[in-house]
């Protein structure tokens, strides 16, 4: 009898226990810094945190600055995965403006950029392709969760998200031509995105930017936010390069957008040239009136190994990763105060790419304030310099170029005034005006180098002038020859990464690769 009793107790106990234990299997994250999709956006503040991630994705590399909780696979070095740093590699290292000392990086393939010998297996190519598309998928998610609302803030956030998506696709189209294409209609998963042609992507970016133009905030409404100014600027960039992208010119459309930045235009009063050239590149460059759109960093609160950190810490005063070629140095006349080179212990000529003592250093970006003081956060090793992605000087130069290339709606005298304004900044020793006769396309290309060197632009500019590949323009070590040699024109776009071709049969390689 007693045994029966025991067994009964045991049976009841076991049943109770089992029933309650099986529900143990349904778990939720335990820490407050991890939430589920059901409860993450529980406050306006949280929505802004979601928006901040979209901006941050273009410069930071993960959720734990400067490195940790990487956005992209841990098999890549996180420090090298910043969008701006990769963009800088593509846009600068492949040109006359920069060489990289440590050619062993990325498995010995990073040197291929300067030599124009990259292949579809070079991992920095895969990394950039992945970075751009990861940004787009995160943005699409945000566009989904902020869609269909009457809340004014959320509508604005939604428009900004669409701007950032268009900007991501713009850089993808510029670098790779064809891209995988996903919108808010595509839920994340394990599906295989379709490929979109360069022309179709161009049309998509254009239509998106035109559609959100009126939905964005007024120029300069809040620092760091994409506004009407940023939208007009990106449209102008798109149109100015339309011949490259779609084979037909859109210089008139470019002028329409760029006129907004000139005196009497929609944005007059919102932007003006900084009195000192360097004001745009210093720790407190957020105070420069010239900046139209920035990607922000902070030495204490927003740390990553982004492009400006790399340019400052990796110059020849630092770990010596970056130098420039004589082709850039020789573009500056005596008296041009924009030539911020480091010449001590450096030779002008580059005999060997991996010798840090050969080629001048560049000291344009600096982690000091306008008044010469060093920010307190400098001790962290990270910088306060915000990345001046779009700035007024560039708008002026684009305007002049669009006019010279035959766009209508502008005029060449206004162009001349705009270009000369850059050479006569308020607090700088004047570089000297140029005459109308000197203002031609060759001048523009060189002037863009002098004004915008190291600002993630050079490759796009050289392609627009058909001097990136081919033999019309040579610089040291182009084509892996000291004097420079001709390279093949298919290299005007980068290859679709071999690993993506392997994982997605919808992707076609680019011609020549």
């Amino acid at each position, binding site marked *: 009898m007693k*045994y029966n009793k025991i067994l009964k*107790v*045991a049976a009841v*106990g076991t049943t109770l226990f089992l029933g309650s*234990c*099986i529900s143990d*299997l*349904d*778990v939720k*994250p335990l*820490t407050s*810094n*991890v*939430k589920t*999709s059901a409860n993450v956006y529980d406050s306006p503040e949280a929505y*802004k*945190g*979601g*928006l*901040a*991630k979209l901006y*941050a994705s273009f410069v*930071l590399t993960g*959720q*734990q*600055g400067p490195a940790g909780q990487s*956005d992209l*696979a*841990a*098999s*890549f070095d996180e420090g090298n995965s910043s969008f701006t740093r990769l963009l800088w590699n593509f846009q600068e290292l492949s040109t006359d403006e920069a060489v990289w000392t440590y050619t062993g*990086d*990325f*498995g*010995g393939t990073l040197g*291929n950029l300067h030599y124009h*010998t990259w292949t579809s297996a*070079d991992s920095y190519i895969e*990394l950039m392709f992945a*970075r751009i*598309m*990861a940004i787009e998928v*995160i943005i699409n*998610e945000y566009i989904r969760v902020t869609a269909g609302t009457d809340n004014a803030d959320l509508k604005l956030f939604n428009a900004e998200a669409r701007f950032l998506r268009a900007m991501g696709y713009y850089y993808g189209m510029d670098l790779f031509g064809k891209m995988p*294409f*996903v919108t808010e209609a595509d839920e*994340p998963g394990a599906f295989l995105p379709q490929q979109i042609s360069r022309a179709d992507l161009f049309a998509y970016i254009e239509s998106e930017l035109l559609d959100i133009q009126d939905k964005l905030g007024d120029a300069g409404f809040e*620092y760091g936010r994409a506004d009407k100014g940023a939208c007009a600027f990106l449209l102008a960039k798109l149109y100015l390069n339309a011949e490259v992208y779609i084979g037909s010119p859109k210089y008139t459309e470019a002028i329409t957008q760029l006129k907004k930045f000139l005196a009497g235009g929609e944005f007059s009063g919102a932007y003006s040239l900084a009195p000192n050239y360097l004001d745009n590149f210093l720790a407190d460059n957020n105070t420069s009136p010239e900046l139209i759109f920035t990607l922000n960093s902070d030495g204490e*609160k927003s*740390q990553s190994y982004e492009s400006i950190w790399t340019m400052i*810490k990796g110059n020849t005063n630092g*770990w*010596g990763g970056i130098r420039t070629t004589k082709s850039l140095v020789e573009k500056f006349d005596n008296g041009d105060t924009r030539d911020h080179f480091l010449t001590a212990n450096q030779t002008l000529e580059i005999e060997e790419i991996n010798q840090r003592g050969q080629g001048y250093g560049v000291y344009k970006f600096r982690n000091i304030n306008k008044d010469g003081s060093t920010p307190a956060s400098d*001790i962290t*090793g*990270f910088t306060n310099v915000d990345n001046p992605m779009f700035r007024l000087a560039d708008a002026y130069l684009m305007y002049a170029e669009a006019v010279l290339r035959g766009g209508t709606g502008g005029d060449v005298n206004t162009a001349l005034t705009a270009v000369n304004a850059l050479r006569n900044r308020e607090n700088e020793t004047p570089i000297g005006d140029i005459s109308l006769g000197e203002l031609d396309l060759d001048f523009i290309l060189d002037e863009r180098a002098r004004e915008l060197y190291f600002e993630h632009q050079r490759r796009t500019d050289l392609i627009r002038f058909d001097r990136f590949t081919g033999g019309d323009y040579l610089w040291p070590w182009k084509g*892996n020859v000291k004097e420079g040699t001709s390279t093949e024109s298919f290299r005007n776009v980068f290859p679709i990464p071999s690993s*993506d071709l*392997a*994982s997605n049969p919808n992707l076609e390689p680019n011609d020549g690769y």
Partner: protein
Amino acid sequence: MMKFYRFLNVFFVIVCSVASLQALAQSARVTGKVTSSDDGSGLPGVSILEKGTSNGTVTDADGGYSINVGTDAVLVFSFVGYASQEVAVSGRTQIDITLETDVTALSEVVIVGYGELKKEDVTGSIVALNSKDFNKGVTASPQDLLLGKVAGVSITSNSGAPGSGATIRIRGGSSLNASNDPLIVIDGFPVDNNGLAGVANPLASINPNDIESYTVLKDASATAIYGSRASNGVIIITTKKGKQGKPKVEYDGLVSVSTPAKYLDVMDANEYRSLITELAAQGISGLNPALVETLGTENTDWQKEIYRNALSSNHNLSVSGSVKSIPYRVSYGYTNQEGILMNTQMERNSLNINLTPSFMDDHIKLNVSAKGSRIFNNFNDAGAVGNAVTFDPTRPVRDEVSPYGGYFSWLNSGATSGTGNPVAQLEQTDNKAIAHRLVGNAQLDYRVHFLPDLKLTVNAGIDRQESEGHNKAGLDAEFARNASGVVVGRNNSYSGMNESKLLEVYGNYAKEFGKHKVDFTGGYGWQHFYRESFATNRNGDNTSIVEIPPFKTENFLLSFYGRLVYSLNSKYVLTATLRNDGSSRFKDHWSLFPSFAFAWNMKEESFLRNVEQINDVKLRLGYGQTGQQAVFDDYPFLATYSQSTSTAQYQLGDQFYYTWRPEAYDPNIKWESTTTQNVGLDVSIIDSKLRISIDGYIRETKDLLNDVKITAGANFTNHILTNVGSLTNKGVEVSLNATPVSSKNLTWNAGFNLTYNKNEVTKLILYDDPGYIGLPGGNIGINANIQNTQVGYPANSFFVFKQVYDASGNPIEGLFVDQTGEGGSVISNEFNKYRFKNPAAKVLMGVNSRLDYKKFDFSFSGRISLGNYVYNNTESSLAFYNNAYSLSHFRNMPKSISDTHFIDRQAYSDFYVQDASFFKMDNISLGYNVDKLLTQKLKARFSLTVQNAFVITKYKGIDPEVDGGLDNNIYPRPRVFLAGINLSF
């Protein structure tokens, strides 16, 4: 948690009510004494059962007993280590008997998951080792007891650091990216294998002296009872228990000296000076004659500066016996192990308490054990190992004018960056941790009164491990720099806790029905794992505080399992197991893992029964599925968002915002499943003097849990944890154990085992694309990988350019075979690389021998590894002339530069993929036994042991045994000389 305690209450209610029951009334009384044939002393704890009933008792401390039985009953006397005897009462009231020791009986019972089986009933591939088989002189790392002893088990210590962990692989890895560690079960408690910061080796908390036996379960039919954790094999550790009788005291003491076994052959100051002079004359490495003048004048052997002969000691004291018929064992262990690298140390205090009382005529047995340990580790800075190889030999260790603690540093002599001074690293770093661990469990077995063939077991326990550590360096520590190369010191602290709780309830029913024998085990298990960690990083002056967000995570594992062993005529044995595991890590929690096995005891057949030369022949066939749930994350199927830390905010307007990032996830993620087929043959011949086991297996893993690249645009990142790919391991294991000589004065036992394993990846990506270059691995620099995993090749093959050699066999710098035939620069095209060898050994062998001559014993054990290749990263990253002077400072060079004379680094040359086959003599030991030391009762053993005695290899690096295959200046494994004494009374 509440549920857990609620259950414990129920559990204790049951225990108490059962214990209060009165024994059933008996009739006639028989008394007597049971003695041992060994020495005639009374044997306590012998179980006495009236045959065919549940009526029984056990002998008391002196071997006496008393039992009420029917006058024509038959009594069965049985005790572990002795041959059982059946005695008919035949009306007697006094029966004294002597039990014969039975050597084979000791090994007749084999521990398996959730119980034990008679050896003849075992159908799986199982190897059991007890303390007499263990390697001698093991003090810190319990896994070393097994080193080289078991076919199919490879143990590679991670480094020579004191108490270092090890990589244990049973039959190679069944997984690619998920864990390949076997499940470790300590006294019925499957322990959490997740590491904890500050703990070098999760096993090190167990004192090797407390281990009674190891059982290694290799094939799926043996492991399937552990279901989703069984794919990589199971190691069951049983600790020593107390025995009935008078207190037995045992003391073990060991002192040892560890010495560096080998130094890397680099240039001395004079050789280096002439090299630099020569290079400067040629303008190599940016050198010029003026720079030669800046060389130092010293002759420092940096490796000799950082290594030392290290002294260690080890003491263990154990007392076992019984108090009021409750057997106990208490042991205390103290280990203080110094590392050969200056200022590295491990100190362990451990206490192990075991109580094994029984109640109600052995119907209830309780096993309560608690293992506590405190481990102190001084990890220091193992980076000094590499820097000692590189540091300029012409420089002094100390420099009085240096602001960096008086150590010579490059920063002090003009260079902005440079190799850290290794002596400074070891003297200025304070990198220590303390870890506490408690594993406690109580197991209650109840042999049901009215159904004695049924045994019910409840096992409840907790394993809690806490650690706390710091890593500090002062503001004058030149090597402690921040991301921008500024010397800022560091003061980093961390802590963590891993806890797992266990509850198992199972029953076992064993019964013979004539020719038929059935043994059924069925049960339920619940285990909860919780882990948390905290860390804060600061500069040396406590500025720049970065709080790493607290990490907390948990998972649950629930299981229902059953095993049926059916045996016919003791000839044919069938085993079927089934486990249903539920894991909180997957959306579909539940999955089934079945296995089937068959064994044929051929000796029982008429055609062998009378063949005297053959003592035993058994054929085993097994098939089973096991799983893998050790994924990297506890919530891989949930759509989650992560908030950024304080250093990854983003500025909009004047404000900084913590950002929210959606995390990539696969809602359909599931278990990895491994199917194993095993064929085994066990033969024992010539009076069991030669015992042979041969096993062949095929193991296929499907739905590999891989953190794989996902195509751009499909998800929030470029990689995801998902099920894709498959791989196969095929192998053969042979194990020979022989007793060639066995006489009164001389006994010789010898063992040999051989393992052959071949690993091949059979599927890797969702879409088979010939253009896919494979999965990179083996990091050797910034985004630089030397290994690659591709379909049709072994995992982690080296991925390199094929070096071209000149007529005299010297490598031609920069000249590699153009595999694609596309021309142009070979090295700028990844597709010109090929897959050349891999780190896994083709064949592993273990040899061991033990000779007992009178009072002396002599034993050794060693390992042979064939076909394991190593990428000599030390050489490839140092031995090229342009490395002699870099970043404005000098760097020493391995003498092997004379093999290549490379000017630039040739990192991807297959020249550096080198054959690292080896023979290692792991252990040589000599012992002397004294039966009566000083007094009648005191027994003693004296021993001398050498560990890591010698290595035979043609590999030129410090040590050919490299876990993972990338030789990167690991903390070298020392040679250890030990002297020991063992006393018992």
